């Protein structure tokens, strides 16, 4: 540290003062009471006291005009200037500025932050303001040692670092002492260790992560390996996902294959069962028909046999009836004889009177017999007529039945035809439904193909656009976007660095002879100035190059070397880092490069979007893969379906198809089922009607025969009577019979009246006669009935025989046997199968085929995907990438551990070194003691300092004596030597305020030489009222010269404070 300039205003008794310090020994002299100690205090205050502190109160100007102001400029290291300006008091202020050239200062801190920063710069063991500091000027070992005032000359001997509030002072001294006390081997090892540590860490201990650093290289290697591994892992995951999907599809396909086979088996089994059932039903029908035929013939035989038996029975009954008639007639004859006998008896009893009665009764009896016979004949004829009439009626009924059966059969045939038509219609509609479905599938497939075509067209367009965009993008060569801020900063730094050189300069060329001069300014083209005869000023901004008569070229560049080197370094960086990008991009500046970057970014984004579009289209196209094949298949199927429709156009069936509703298959199945049932019913009805017709025909034929027989009998009967007189004859006969009976009753009453005694016998005879007549009548009626029955049965028998003769029992039995064998030969279905079940099995098979086709398509797509992703190839590459990542990570860990160890080693070496130097007293004491011995001509043997630089005393005659035991002069001299040693080790300014006033001339002379010697290595500022103690007369300030005089090659400066200080 060196002080450059001090300016003081309104500070205690000093109104104003301004001092420019020299780099070495500064002797500031003036008479007592001039304000020398005030200036020393001003330096202490401006460096240590916050402007708000009441510690400045003693320095309020005596005039009370303004607040005290101190302005100090100092330098802490090469090219690092500071300027602190403090105006003390309640309305005061603080300002800290920094400069690289000592001329142009920039504000760094203000107010309270100024003191914090100053203490950080000084590192004197004084904490930041507010951290336990008091109201006065903060003190520390170094503040006492370096800035001690006249009143505290020997304070340093009583102080030590142990009392410092912070360790910054101790650390600074330790570091300074270390630098001069290290072992050469240790220094070598320390340097190597430091170099190794610095390869990896910044000064502040952070890891270096810039390009080229070891950690960055290792991390880049890891990141690169990790990126590659993650990229490959993603490919492998994708691949495994696709493989998994493919395995699932293979499994699903196997399953569906089995399902399809099972569905096909089920359909075949169901159809076989249905066929078996149909065959069995047909055979059963045929068998039943054959059985019916046989049964019919057998029934005929039975009917014939029964009819023959019945004819026999009826013939026997007729014979019995004839016998009964004869018996009854014999009984009647006997009864008549008995009655005659009774009558004879009565007549015998009353011959005369009864003779007429008897004659009358006999006449009446004869008339009665005749009437009875007439009644019998008429009754028989009437019965024959009635029989013929009934036969005719029945015959008509059979004919009506036959007609009805025929009509029923015709109706059934019509119904069957209608049902067949419906079935045909159903078939047609089924084909139409299939055709329409096929058309729909074909349309869908066509739409898919059209879509695929459109997508491929879009893809081609986008691919073209992408290619064009990629070409445009490839033509733009730009650095990563993140590098632009760095380039801008580089440009700014370069401009700033160049600006630092742009300070302007004027070069004067003074020719000693006539010379030819050529000048080039600021890199412009050289200007030939011809022969130069007189001085020439050349003014430029940054650089002047003067070529003098081919003898020499003088180049003058503005700015300090560091600034120029900085520009060169930045230009080199610009050439290396920025220029290639600009040239590659074909632009001249960063703005244009930025625009190019934006354009590249836009193109990248556009490319990304196009890639995304292409991916999307590829996925869509992949999803449509197989559409053309599907279209061919569906179109072929639709064509086949249309061919199946024959000449019927699908359009003509639109209304019918629409009427089928949303589920035409089910509707058609229902309709087909109904039509099948209707056809079955119609066929059954027709069969029944045919059977009924046959029976009716047979019966009609039988009845016709009976009718014909009855008609013959009737006609035979009617032939004995006039036509239509039978009933009249019967009626007349019955009336005659009634009349006769009435006459007989009258006669009988006459007889009764006349022959009372004969009444009982005659009554018995009459009753017997009546009974016999009644028996004859009954027998005759029975005979008539038997004859009629016999005739009827004989007629029926003849008809049956005729029908039977027409039937062939053997043939019917042969057909029956063959039908039975055929029926038995057919396998019986395990169970009943309905048409719905067959249709459901057919649908299930179709569904299974569709599912299988879908899986095949998915498999095709997945296989395509798999072919792109890599499979085992990707796994191989991933294995390599994993190994590489492992290696890189291992290397990174190794590097990290290695450099951590280097850092630890460096820390421990430094700590060991610091520990070795921490006994500061041991390090510093010899230097002080050497000089103290020289000063005192070896009177004192050594100086003992504590580890914290506390002064224990001096060794005199083997005995350690406290500094207090020394004389004031010796103590002042020891104190000054101590402070000079510290200043020298720390290479910093020390301020001595009349330190050696108690020294004799010889010691003063010794000190004067020492100060002049040390002034070449660090700055010493001496305030004194006795300049002759330090300066020769020639080195003094003269009254007519400037306020200071430099001597000893500029290392000694004499400053007359009487001229520099204005007092208030």
């Amino acid at each position, binding site marked *: 540290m060196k002080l450059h300039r001090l300016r003081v205003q309104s500070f205690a008794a000093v109104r104003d003062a301004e001092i420019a310090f020299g780099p070495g020994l500064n002797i500031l002299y003036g008479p007592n009471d001039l304000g020398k100690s005030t200036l020393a205090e001003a330096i202490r205050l401006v460096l240590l006291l916050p402007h708000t502190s009441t510690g400045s109160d003693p320095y309020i100007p005596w005039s009370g005009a303004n607040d005290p102001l101190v302005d100090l400029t100092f330098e802490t290291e090469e090219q690092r200037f500071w300027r602190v300006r403090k105006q003390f008091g309640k309305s005061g202020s603080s300002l800290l500025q920094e400069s690289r050239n000592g001329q142009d200062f920039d504000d760094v801190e203000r107010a309270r932050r100024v003191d914090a920063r100053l203490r950080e710069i000084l590192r004197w063991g004084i904490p930041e303001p507010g951290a336990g500091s008091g109201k006065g000027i903060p003190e520390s070992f170094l503040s006492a040692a370096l800035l001690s005032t006249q009143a505290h000359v020997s304070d340093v001997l009583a102080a030590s670092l142990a009392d410092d509030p912070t360790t910054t002072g101790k650390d600074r001294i330790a570091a300074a002492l270390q630098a001069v006390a290290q072992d050469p081997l240790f220094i070598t090892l320390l340097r190597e260790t430091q170099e190794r540590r610095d390869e990896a860490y910044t000064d502040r201990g952070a890891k270096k992560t810039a390009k080229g650093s070891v950690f960055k290289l290792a991390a880049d290697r890891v990141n690169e390996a990790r990126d590659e591994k993650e990229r490959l892992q993603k490919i492998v995951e994708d691949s495994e996902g696709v493989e998994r999907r493919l395995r699932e599809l293979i499994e699903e396909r196997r399953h569906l294959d089995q399902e399809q086979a099972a569905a096909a088996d089920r359909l075949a089994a169901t159809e076989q069962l249905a066929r078996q059932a149909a065959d069995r039903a047909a055979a059963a029908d045929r068998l039943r028909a054959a059985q019916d035929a046989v049964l019919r013939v057998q029934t005929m035989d039975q009917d014939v046999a029964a009819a023959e038996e019945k004819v026999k029975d009826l013939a026997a009954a007729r014979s019995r009836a004839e016998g009964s008639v004869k018996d009854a007639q014999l009984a009647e004859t006997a009864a008549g004889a008995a009655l005659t006998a009774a009558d004879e008896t009565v007549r015998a009893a009353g011959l005369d009177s009864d003779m007429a009665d008897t004659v009358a009764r006999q006449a009446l009896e004869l008339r009665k017999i005749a009437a009875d016979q007439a009644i019998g004949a008429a009754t028989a004829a009437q019965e024959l007529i009635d029989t013929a009439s009934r036969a005719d009626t029945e015959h008509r009924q059979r004919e009506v039945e036959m007609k009805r059966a025929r009509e029923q059969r015709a109706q059934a045939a019509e119904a069957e035809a209608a049902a067949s038509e419906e079935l045909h219609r159903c078939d047609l509609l089924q084909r139409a439904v299939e055709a329409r479905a096929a058309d729909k599938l074909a349309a869908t497939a066509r739409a898919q193909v059209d879509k695929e075509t459109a997508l491929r067209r879009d893809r081609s367009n986008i691919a073209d656009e992408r290619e064009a965009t990629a070409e445009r993008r490839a033509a733009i060569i730009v650095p990563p976007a993140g590098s632009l801020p760095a380039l801008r900063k580089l440009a700014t730094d370069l401009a700033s660095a160049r600006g630092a050189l742009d300070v302007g300069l004027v070069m004067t060329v003074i020719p000693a002879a006539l010379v030819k001069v050529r000048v080039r300014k600021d890199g412009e083209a050289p200007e030939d100035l011809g022969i130069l005869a007189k001085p020439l000023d050349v003014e430029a901004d940054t650089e002047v190059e003067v070529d003098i008569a081919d003898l020499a070229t003088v180049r003058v560049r503005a700015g300090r070397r560091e600034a120029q080197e900085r520009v060169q370094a930045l230009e080199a960086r610009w050439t290396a880092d920025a220029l290639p990008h600009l040239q590659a991009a074909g632009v001249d500046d960063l703005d244009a490069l930025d625009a190019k970057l934006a354009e590249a970014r836009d193109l990248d984004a556009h490319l990304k979007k196009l890639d995304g579009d292409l991916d999307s289209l590829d996925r869509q196209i992949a999803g449509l893969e197989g559409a053309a094949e599907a279209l061919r298949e569906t179109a072929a199927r639709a064509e086949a379906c249309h061919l199946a429709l024959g000449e019927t156009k699908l359009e003509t069936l639109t209304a019918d198809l629409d009427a089928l509703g949303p589920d035409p298959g089910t509707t058609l199945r229902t309709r087909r089922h109904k039509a099948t049932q209707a056809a079955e019913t119609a066929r059954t009805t027709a069969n029944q009607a045919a059977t009924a017709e046959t029976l009716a025909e047979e019966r009609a034929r039988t009845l016709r025969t009976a009718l014909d027989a009855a008609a013959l009998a009737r006609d035979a009967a009617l032939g004995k009577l006039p036509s239509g007189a039978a009933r009249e004859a019967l009626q007349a006969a019955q009336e005659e019979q009634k009349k006769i009976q009435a006459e007989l009753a009258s006669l009988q009453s006459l007889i009764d009246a006349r022959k009372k005694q004969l009444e009982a016998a005659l009554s018995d005879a009459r009753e017997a006669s009546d009974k016999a007549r009644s028996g004859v009548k009954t027998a005759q009626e029975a005979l008539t009935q038997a004859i009629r029955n016999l005739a009827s049965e004989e007629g029926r028998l003849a008809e049956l025989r005729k029908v039977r003769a027409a039937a062939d029992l053997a043939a019917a039995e042969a057909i029956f046997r063959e039908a039975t064998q055929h029926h038995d030969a057919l396998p019986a279905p395990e169970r009943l199968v309905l048409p719905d079940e067959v249709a459901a099995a057919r649908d299930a098979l179709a569904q299974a085929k569709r599912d299988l086709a879908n899986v095949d398509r998915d498999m095709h797509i997945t296989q395509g995907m798999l072919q792109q992703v890599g499979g085992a190839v990707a796994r191989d590459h991933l294995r390599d990438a994993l190994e590489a990542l492992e*290696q890189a990570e291992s290397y990174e860990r190794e590097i990290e551990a290695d450099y951590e160890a280097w850092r630890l080693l460096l820390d421990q070496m430094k700590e060991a070194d610091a520990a070795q130097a921490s006994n500061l007293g041991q390090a510093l004491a010899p230097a002080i003691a050497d000089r103290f011995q020289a000063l005192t001509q070896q009177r004192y043997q050594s100086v003992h300092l504590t580890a914290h630089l506390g002064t224990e005393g001096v060794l005199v005659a083997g005995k350690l004596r406290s500094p207090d035991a020394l004389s004031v002069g010796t103590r002042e001299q020891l104190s000054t030597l101590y402070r000079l040693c510290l200043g020298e080790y720390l290479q910093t300014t020390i301020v001595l305020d009349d330190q050696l006033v108690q020294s004799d001339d010889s010691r003063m002379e010794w000190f004067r030489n020492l100060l002049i010697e040390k002034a070449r290595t660090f700055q010493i500022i001496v305030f004194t009222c006795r300049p002759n103690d330090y300066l020769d007369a020639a080195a003094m300030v003269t009254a007519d010269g400037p306020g200071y005089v430099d001597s000893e090659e500029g290392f000694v400066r004499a400053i007359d404070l009487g001229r520099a200080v204005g007092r208030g």
Partner: protein
Amino acid sequence: MLKLLHTADWHLGKRFPSFPEEAQKKLSRARMNVIATILDVARRNMVHAVLCAGDLFDDPTPGADFWEGLAKIFRDHPPPHIPVFLVPGNHDPLTPESVWSPGHPFRARLPAWVHVVDRDDFTFEITPDAVLYARPCRSKAGECDLAMSLPARAPGDIKLRIGCVHGSTFDLKGYQTNFPISRDAGVERGLDYLAIGDMHSFRDVTASLPVPTVYPGAPEPTSFDEPDAGRVAVVALFRHGSRPRVDSEPVAFWRWLDVRCRSMNDLRALLITKDLERHVVRLHLEMTVTLAEESELERIIRDLEGTDATHGRAGILLVDRTRLRLQVGSADAFPDDLPPVIRDTVARLDRIVAEAVDEADKVKATRALSHLYKLVQRQNDASGGAS
């Protein structure tokens, strides 16, 4: 008798990202160099044809250096020229963009006696009595059994039939998509020999069947876990129905050696391994060493590895130090005459080792001691050398 040389899995252009750059170049070059060796073996054995069963390039679009290099080897190969058949594998499938594509310049540079199997129905009459059937991979993955897709033997055909495809005979799940090859495909298709490629170790996967189905392995190994790699198969076929004889011949330059050293003696013994310069050595250091031993260990590794000025004894060296441990503390390894500040440094590091709770701190301090030890040793060596 028909003689064939069967090779596969050249993997030209394969990268070895876990190796240092120079080693990667050595390994990559060796893959190219071995092809000339293979052709020499074919000539020496007087084979009738050379079958190359896939994965000849590591990628379907390898760098020009590789396909140009391969074409040059073929072109420069002196006569007599026997037919060579190159089959695309799953690493280098036949695609329109691939090196096998008829329009690729590689194809134009191949001599006429080198045939690329670029058709699914590829057949070639090697001799009047022997026919080759081959089929290329057309993608990086697929579940098609290329061997089973070769034509079956026609009734009455008594010629020798040789199949050549690329794929995996693994019957495990997960390998179905790596062009699976049925183990009895040779028998099923009526072949007399089925030449396949994919596995990098030499292996006859059908030793119990009458038709050999053989992986010849990679002619140069690609990793440490490929036993019996570095070979080609030389096949002698006598007549149809008779099992051919299959011999393997070594062709590799590099031998891959995985070495575990559990003591300094193991490490010292490694130095006397024969032909170490033709070995790719992966050295697993699994031991605990003192500072002095570590110094020797590093010297041996430098000896094996080589320096900028000297060749290493090992051809290529990878060192795995993850199980190398330093004996903690200095253990009085440092000389006594060191300056106090260095002795103090050693003592401080020893103290850290002794007092550290965390094992990592002990390791770090021990490593710092190791650094210091080596620095001191080097200084001593330098001063000793100077004197």
